[in-house]
């Protein structure tokens, strides 16, 4: 308990505290403090000081305190007016502060709700990612299993087949002549069937090995696999009196063995599917710059079933086709070129065709110009639209992204050609367009080529005019940054 003297002193001071001026001053100070608190974002202090200030000014305004006896009557109305204004201001600030606190509280709730939502979304996403990872793993397992399956199956299938083949032959060897001609014929069919079956099994084996036995891509001079493929086909080339010529070949990042396989199958097909004259095969490569984005499809001369004129083929093909038509203007005529002394390089070929861009209408269908166009449907457009190409295509034909370049290889022949409706089908496994007796082979070659090219991130397609010839185009992404040998 406070002592009586203390209470007495407090009572003495009370009038001083209770003066109107004192209260008004305190009210102003608290008001300022409240404003400051709001400015600094301290809601609690703002609320407190605001309340206190309002209280002070309220007291002053309603004259709850006994005014000092010597109060100046002249000042009084002014003081009352001022306190009134400040009182309202304080009340307003109080409401503002209250609202501020309330909003902050609500916002906190909203943030928490949002957080919860985000968290649940994150966990959902995580679950989805896990699922994706699991399904990817299971897909990879399945792929691996399938590859193993193909390999093991084809490997194990040969065992019983070998037995059938061997014993049928033993039968033939030992009893030929002792049986009637029918029996000999039956044995012949059996042996033949076994041989075909064996070819098919070996084809599956080779096909499955594209991914299971593939080597990691390395920078390879593509002339080496090409030469190896030609060497492997030496006998067939000689038998059919075929001529194989090729341009300068670039260095590309590939599995060399597989590129050799691609060349082998394509040249083999070119030799095989040629009936009337000596096969002439021409292999070349050109560098293509991708005009950014998804328009890479336009790089690829696409097949237009409706247009089958020679003019179209020339237009959609490569410069060398024009060479062939105008041998006098372009001395190195492909057919007569010696592959070894072929000095025409790719780097000289490209500037030639680029210069053609500046002179568009006179050079109908310069292939470089067309393949550089960014519109997919432009490359195989009709002649009239083709003439318009340079204007639209030229500005965008510049190199925009050096990463998205690729080498476009082509293997052209003068063989029997392929009807347009089969242009896609021929890349399927065991797809044959002829009876087994007509042309040898199981129909796996192009399927293997496709698998190999796709493994390297490229594309393959065929362009052909029936009875006139076929050109197979395939692309290999240029990872090395280019350059020819």
């Amino acid at each position, binding site marked *: 308990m406070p002592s009586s003297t203390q209470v007495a002193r407090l009572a003495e001071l009370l009038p001083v505290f209770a003066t109107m001026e004192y209260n008004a001053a305190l009210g102003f100070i608290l008001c300022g403090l409240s404003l400051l608190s709001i400015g600094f974002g301290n809601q609690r202090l703002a609320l407190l000081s605001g309340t206190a200030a309002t209280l002070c000014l309220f007291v002053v305004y309603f004259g709850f305190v006994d005014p000092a006896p010597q109060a100046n009557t002249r000042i009084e109305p002014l003081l009352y007016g001022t306190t009134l204004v400040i009182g309202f201001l304080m009340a307003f600030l109080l409401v503002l502060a209250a609202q501020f606190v309330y909003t902050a509280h609500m916002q906190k709730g909203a943030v928490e709700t949002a957080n919860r939502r985000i968290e649940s979304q994150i966990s959902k996403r995580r679950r989805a990612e896990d699922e994706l990872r699991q399904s990817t793993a299971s897909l990879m397992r399945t792929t691996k299993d399938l590859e193993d399956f193909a390999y093991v199956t084809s490997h194990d299938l040969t065992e019983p087949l070998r037995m059938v*083949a061997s014993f049928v*032959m033993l039968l033939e060897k030992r009893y030929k002549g002792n049986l009637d001609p029918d029996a000999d014929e039956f044995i012949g069919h059996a042996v033949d069937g076994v041989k075909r079956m064996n070819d098919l099994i070996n084809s599956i084996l080779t096909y499955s090995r594209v991914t299971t036995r593939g080597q990691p891509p390395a920078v390879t001079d593509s002339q080496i696999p090409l030469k190896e493929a030609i060497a492997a086909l030496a006998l067939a080339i000689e038998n059919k009196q075929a001529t194989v010529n090729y341009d300068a070949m670039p260095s590309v990042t590939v599995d060399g063995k597989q590129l050799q396989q691609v060349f082998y199958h394509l040249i083999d097909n070119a030799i095989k599917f040629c009936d009337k004259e000596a096969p002439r095969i021409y292999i070349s490569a050109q560098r293509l710059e991708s005009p950014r984005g998804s328009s890479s499809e336009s790089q690829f001369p696409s097949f237009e079933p409706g247009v089958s004129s020679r003019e179209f083929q020339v237009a959609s093909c490569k410069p060398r086709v024009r060479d062939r038509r105008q041998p006098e203007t372009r001395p190195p005529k492909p057919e007569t070129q010696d592959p070894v002394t072929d000095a025409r390089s790719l780097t000289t070929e490209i500037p030639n065709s680029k210069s053609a861009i500046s002179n568009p209408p006179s050079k109908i269908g310069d292939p470089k110009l067309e393949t550089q166009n960014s519109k997919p449907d432009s490359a195989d457009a009709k002649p009239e639209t083709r003439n318009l190409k340079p204007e639209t295509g030229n500005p965008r034909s510049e190199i925009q992204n050096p990463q998205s370049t690729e080498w476009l290889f082509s293997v052209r022949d003068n063989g029997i050609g392929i009807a347009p409706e089969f242009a896609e089908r021929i890349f399927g496994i065991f797809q044959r367009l002829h009876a087994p007796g007509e042309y040898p082979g199981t129909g796996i070659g192009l399927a293997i080529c496709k698998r190999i090219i796709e493994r390297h991130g490229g594309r393959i397609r065929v362009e052909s005019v029936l009875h006139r010839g076929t050109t197979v185009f395939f692309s290999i992404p240029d990872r090395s940054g280019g350059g020819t040998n």
Partner: protein
Amino acid sequence: MSKRPIEILIVEDNPGDVRLIRESLSDTETQHRLHVARDGEEALAYLHQEGEFAGAPRPELIILDLNLPTKNGHDVLAVIKSSAQFKFIPVVILTSSNLDEDILKAYAHNANCYVTKSVDPMEATRLLGAIRDFWLTSARLPVPLPPGIHSDLSSPT
């Protein structure tokens, strides 16, 4: 050459192949006797003259398949070529596997030659003929010496 028949051990699980080898080898003047083991365990039992193979003659040539039940051909080959007793016996690997790994592994284990069974019957006949002509006619095989002497030979170091 002695008139004594050459003892040949065929380690092969497929009776068809055994028959084909038998057929091919029958086309020679060289006297020979065929013994058959149908899996790896049996092959080792034969070599060690265990069980039903008690008293079986030691082979002078082994024709070994790789893909065998129980112990596979590589295991059998490894046992043969690491055994002082048997390592001088020529082993012809005759298998349907043409995997580079198998070929390398077989030679690493000192196989004497590696031949792939061909599905093409003409080629298969030619290959078996080549094995027959070389190993039974052209090549000289190690003649088993009287007991006791081989152990001196087998540990040259």
